[in-house]
């Protein structure tokens, strides 16, 4: 492993950040369930608090198990480092709160997870941060939304749940011309399907609750810094380029040429907002990460088969997956995603030709698919976005996000694909009967 070798993705997914425990020889990553860590001396304590030495002090700020997860994610994404947090929402909030305060402005894609939309549209507005939403493919719209106080561009790699592929190179270029970074939510794609830093994004975050952990057992999130954005050259981020009295008068961009964002996010954001990840949760996510490449391959192949089935079914209208040439992001997916259109993931939506009652009958007839509010599980999942995840959105906003009143969202799991198709067949038959 050491030396000349340049480990591939699958190897990093198993080994990055972890080595046999030097104290016990334990091969698997130990769970460090401790709030705090003993100082070797008063000088050691002072040096840790003052960032003269690096190490763990208190598990709200850092923890050895979390650090393995953080290093592993930074390795898989190609970043300089990462911060594990309590959820994907915590990751988004930490990213924004590190970069700006009241009076700032964000330009964001309309095709966002409902929780993200809530945070930007309602909650942050209350704290003086405004957001202008733009359809992800509306390049002129991104440009037109820029204001003098714009501090961030934000979108999802593939928009939830319409799978609009974000043109990261183009949007990143517009952001960089405005001297602001591009933040990308890569939850639905994971680094296995797209590496946003290679396309021009500056900060990436995930809800680790989904594919990274993969087993529907844990809530968690992670922010990864690509180290590419030059905060000093931008001039828009005094939070990172001027002395911060809240932490030793430190100027974060001086302390780290490529990691200023992470330094402040950990030293202020985790310290003050406190949305830390439990080490036990980090360990569960690591169990999932070890098999991420294998699982994502199966997610993709199962999804391909299900999409083919649905696309040929008489009761199904639109199938919203870039695998289909009719999908507006088909060409973009071919160009940007590591595995082409099949790499747009296994969370997608389709419309049943029929009434709301038929949609309801469809969901209730499913046996293998679980009706719940999550995606990225090893089990297949189903939900009706308009009445659940996106229920706060107006019809107009729903349409902007590519969601209709009868849209069904599927998250394709790892079961035998024939069984999944049988389940869908049975449910579609029930929907057909309900419309008779």
């Amino acid at each position, binding site marked *: 492993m050491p030396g000349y070798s340049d480990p591939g993705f699958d190897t990093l997914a198993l080994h990055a950040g972890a*080595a046999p425990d030097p104290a016990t020889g334990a091969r698997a990553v130990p769970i460090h369930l401790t709030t705090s860590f003993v100082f070797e001396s008063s000088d050691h304590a002072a040096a840790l608090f003052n960032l003269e030495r690096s190490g763990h002090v208190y598990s709200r700020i850092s923890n050895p198990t979390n650090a393995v997860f953080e290093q592993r994610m930074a390795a898989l994404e190609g970043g300089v480092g990462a911060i594990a947090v309590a959820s994907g929402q915590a990751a988004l909030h930490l990213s924004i709160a590190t970069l700006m305060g009241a009076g700032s402005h964000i330009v964001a894609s309309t095709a966002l997870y409902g929780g993200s939309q809530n945070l930007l549209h309602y909650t942050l507005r209350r704290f003086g941060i405004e957001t202008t939403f733009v359809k992800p493919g509306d390049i002129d719209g991104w440009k037109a939304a820029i204001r003098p106080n714009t501090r961030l561009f934000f979108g999802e790699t593939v928009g939830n749940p319409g799978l609009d592929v974000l043109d990261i190179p183009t949007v990143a270029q517009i952001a960089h011309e405005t001297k602001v970074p591009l933040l990308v939510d890569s939850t639905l794609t994971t680094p296995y399907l797209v590496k946003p830093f290679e396309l021009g994004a500056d900060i990436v975050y995930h809800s680790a609750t989904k594919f990274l952990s993969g087993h529907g057992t844990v809530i968690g999130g992670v922010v990864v810094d690509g*180290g590419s954005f030059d905060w000093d050259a931008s001039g828009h981020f005094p939070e990172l380029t001027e002395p911060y009295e809240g932490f030793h008068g430190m100027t974060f961009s001086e302390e780290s040429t490529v990691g200023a964002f992470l330094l402040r996010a950990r030293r202020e954001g985790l310290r003050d907002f406190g949305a830390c990840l439990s080490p036990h949760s980090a360990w569960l996510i690591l169990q999932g990460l070890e098999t991420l490449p294998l699982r994502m391959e199966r997610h993709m192949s199962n999804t391909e088969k299900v999409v083919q089935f649905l696309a040929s079914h008489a009761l199904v209208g639109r199938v919203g997956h870039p695998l289909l040439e009719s999908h507006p992001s088909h060409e973009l997916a071919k160009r940007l995603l590591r595995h082409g259109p099949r790499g747009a993931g296994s969370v997608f939506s389709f419309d049943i030709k029929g009434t709301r009652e038929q949609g309801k009958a469809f969901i209730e007839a499913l046996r293998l698919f679980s009706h719940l509010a999550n995606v990225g599980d090893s089990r297949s999942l189903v939900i009706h976005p308009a009445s659940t995840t996106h229920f706060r959105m107006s019809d107009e906003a729903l349409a902007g996000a590519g969601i209709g009143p009868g849209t069904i969202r599927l998250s394709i799991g790892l079961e035998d694909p024939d069984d999944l198709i049988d389940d869908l067949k049975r449910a579609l038959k029930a929907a057909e009967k309900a419309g008779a």
Partner: protein
Amino acid sequence: MMFVQVNGARTYCYTGGKPFDPAKPTVVFIHGVLNDHSVWILQSRYLAHHGWNVLAVDLPGHCKSEGEAPATVEAAADFIGALLDAAGVQRAALVGHSWGSLIALEAAARLGDRVSHLVLVGTAFPMKVSPALIEASLNEPMKALAMVNVFSRSTLAAPPSALGPGTWVYGTGMALGRRVLASNPKVNVFHRGFVACDRYANGENAIAAITCPVLFVLGGLDQMTHPKAAQTLVKAARAADKRVSVVSLPVGHHQMTETPDTTLFAIRDFLATAG
């Protein structure tokens, strides 16, 4: 931080979070090719809070420092002397990594008694760079950058490092290299630095000329500057009756970030000895 005018160019030095104090002894940290002051953050910040003035410099034409990027080790060594003059430092310890170790060595030889201690981290002499890598640094710098960072790495599981826990040392090396390269639109400082390393021929004479004790901090797993390649200098120093210390760390070429504490302790303990 501190900016000083050196040879007419605005020069940046990280001072470790403490203001420069002429009453304290001074240590100068000198980075290697495609690096800047930030590779020394932990070591320099610690020493700045433990009795030392720190000047962790961005070499001319690198990141925050203006001026012409040095094309030879000798030119860079003269810059270090000029930096001491500009900062009003009569005597200082010099700590250099990789290319910076050659600069520190040559500067120590030229400055004589003005140098109290010399620390050579990840050093070699001659510091030959393969023709393929030199060519790649000029024509395919991103490919060469990846090669350098792969060769420099010794572990996939570094301890908490400069950015704190969660730092991916390989990624920081890649990002810093890209940033330093982009910081100078006029000169490819990657290629220029490698050529300077490759052509430096005065190592043995320089180590014989120094008047201070010297510490070698070598990485046992270092593929960029293999510890065997430092033996020419170690032997020459001993043959010239210099006070020589050698510390071998189980690490590659990223000594300061893959083993920040042990690298710090080696430097700290050496600087505590009489210079």
